[in-house]
């Protein structure tokens, strides 16, 4: 029984923290947020050189073949630095292919993704429907040697910079669709969080070959569990950063001749933020460990993590804003960027209430 990260995991943590701190500051993040796609060619190239998109990709596809704990370590740091751009979208596309893709698909799509030559993203959620696999309504129609896809997918991350989409269909099936395929229309859908862009992807009679299909009922669960862990870890990093900002501010800001952090109304709020941040961290790493070591508890652990971290992320950023007072409400201060990313992460792949219902089912309530 030991909760420590290994030396290698600590090295990954330090390397990610140092790299992101060196490359990203407020000006850089804001500049990217103001572009159409929040994408920096130079930053992405460096991230690919570090092997992050292929972190969990098998060595046979040119990936690092690391585990879910490493995934959590990386995403905690990505959240802490409020990293813009397509790390999450590519990680999730890679996880889907790694989990259920065919050998040929892994060679054609996953290996180039891990090498940074192609980018992919998930297009799972149908307009007007929820987060469950059972809520996906897109029904492929058989046509000569393949299928035709009609529908509209929302919440598609970084679609404008993706080379291919992993499109979800009924029965938890997946189809690889190239962005340039006839019948595909990509429309930006501005959201709260400008640092990571989302799009609507319309599929209008898009024809794909049979060899673009993979997945099916029961086959995508492992990828989903890791998506929950990645988001919970990112939320933990965001909460950690918002907590540190609040504590630093409470030490320096003076009112009534004292630092405001000396007042219990403020200091107890900060203590509460720590409680929730540490809880999110415990839950995220426990789920990461379970995903790789205890498959029977992994679904429960992952939903516990996503439920708790979603609440912690939104509450801690909100509490930090309150500690900052008026300055925290200004566009000029960075806090709102974290608040908005937390809000986005909290609803993605199921909000806290949705995951609590899963916990209730899995825990036999």
């Amino acid at each position, binding site marked *: 029984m030991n*909760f420590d990260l290994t030396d290698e995991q600590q090295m990954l943590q330090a390397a990610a923290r140092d790299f992101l701190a060196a490359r990203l500051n407020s000006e850089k993040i804001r500049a990217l947020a103001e572009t159409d796609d929040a994408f920096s060619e130079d930053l992405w190239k460096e991230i690919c050189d570090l092997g992050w998109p292929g972190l969990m990709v098998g060595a046979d596809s040119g990936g690092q073949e690391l585990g879910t704990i490493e995934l959590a370590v990386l995403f905690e740091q990505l959240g802490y630095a409020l990293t813009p751009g397509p790390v999450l979208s590519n990680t999730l596309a890679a996880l889907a292919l790694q989990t259920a893709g065919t050998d040929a698909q892994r060679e054609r799509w996953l290996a180039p993704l891990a090498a940074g030559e192609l980018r992919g993203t998930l297009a799972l959620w149908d307009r007007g429907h929820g987060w469950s696999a059972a809520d996906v309504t897109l029904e492929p129609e058989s046509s000569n040697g393949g299928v035709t896809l009609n529908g509209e997918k929302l919440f598609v991350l970084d679609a404008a910079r993706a080379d291919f989409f992993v499109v979800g269909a009924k029965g938890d099936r997946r189809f690889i669709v190239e962005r340039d395929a006839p019948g595909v229309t990509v429309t930006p859908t501005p959201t709260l969080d400008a640092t990571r862009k989302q799009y609507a992807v319309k599929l209008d009679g898009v024809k794909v070959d049979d060899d673009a299909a993979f997945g099916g009922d029961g086959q995508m669960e492992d990828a989903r569990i890791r998506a929950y862990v990645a988001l919970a870890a990112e939320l933990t990093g965001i909460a950690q950063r918002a907590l540190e900002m609040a504590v630093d501010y409470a030490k320096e800001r003076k009112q009534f001749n004292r630092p405001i952090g000396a007042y219990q109304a403020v200091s107890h709020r900060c203590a509460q933020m720590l409680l929730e941040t540490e809880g999110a961290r415990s839950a995220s790493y426990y789920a990461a460990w379970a995903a790789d070591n205890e498959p029977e508890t992994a679904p429960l652990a992952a939903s516990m993590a996503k439920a708790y971290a979603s609440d912690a992320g939104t509450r801690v950023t909100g509490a930090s804003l309150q500690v900052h007072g008026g300055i925290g409400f200004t566009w000029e201060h960075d806090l709102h960027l974290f608040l908005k990313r937390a809000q986005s992460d909290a609803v993605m792949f199921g909000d806290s209430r949705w995951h609590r219902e899963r916990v209730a089912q899995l825990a036999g309530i």
Partner: protein
Amino acid sequence: MDLTLSPSEEAFRDELRSWLESNHPGQPPKDDDARAFQWRRQWQSQLHKGGWAGLSWPKEYGGRGATLIEQAIFSEEMVRGNVPAPANVLGLVMGGPVVIHHGTEEQKQRYLEPILSAEEIWCQGFSEPDAGSDLASLKTRAVKRDGGWVVTGQKVWTTLAHEAKWCMLVARTDADAPKHQGLTYFLMDMEQDGVDVKPLVQITGESEFNEIFMDEAYIPDENIVGGVGNGWGVAITTLMNERAGLAFAAQAALKTHINDAISLAKSISHDGRTAAEDPLTRDRLAQLFIEAEIFRVTNYRGLTKIMKNGVPGPEGSLGKWQWAEVNQRLMELALEIEGPYGQFAEGSDYALGGDWQYQFLRTRANSIEGGTTDILKNIVAERVLGLPKLR
């Protein structure tokens, strides 16, 4: 990270389980506190003979020298098996460790064995009517006289004082020194004329606690632990051990209560569906389940840290605070699930069974005993986050 038990930890757990299978004592007699306590003494002596008392104590002092993980396993197994607590809890968790850390060799020889065997029960005299959270402001005075000290004052919230032979007493020996420096840690013999014990009845109707009145009680010099004027530091060791020692038992008990509450929610119907099917109740039960699990995981994270740094850190305050909060919310929800039936006195023909009403009342103390939640937040703010002190 490896959250599985090592082969030696598994062996420890299996040995404990099989010992408990053949030695489980059943439950103490109800409705007679004195007999129940006598029963617990017997049970502790049996535990001791089996080698399961003083788990954390070094082997040379009659303990088992168990690792922190083994101690955690022990606590979890005791709750899992519904095994009653031994009699001399405070001696085992606090008194023994303090004597081992700060005591002289003579003191170790004199006091440790009777703690393990439950021949001598211990209690703790720290809090006073005017010194609760601000413990260092305590007023009980000890004055030097004839190779010893004469003590006058009052202590409160003293668990087991009516059964105890020894009291871990912190008293002021230097009224002129700064308040943290004028204190001394004594072992006071409770069996003397200068000591008077009165039970305190709490909101559950029980008397777990007492008041102790000391009127010129005598303590010889050799009963000082850690030297004159060092009482604060010695007392802190006691409190740290208390918090670390109780966390795993608390966690296991919480888990049991959550499972019981889930069964309760499934067994009670309102408006054509069980409480467990009501979306709002369901959501709250799931949230409590999650928080109890996180409390467990955070405890284990804390252990890893203690094993590296040697001592429990201020982070332990987070766990105690979280535990109190989850425990209270759980009992509130359980009574809410029972609805109007939650009012009936336990044992009434109309009551639904279970001890939710008792738990509801008893858990009100969780955010007060062993450090109030309010003080724990101060500790977290000042010592973990480094925020400035108001004082």
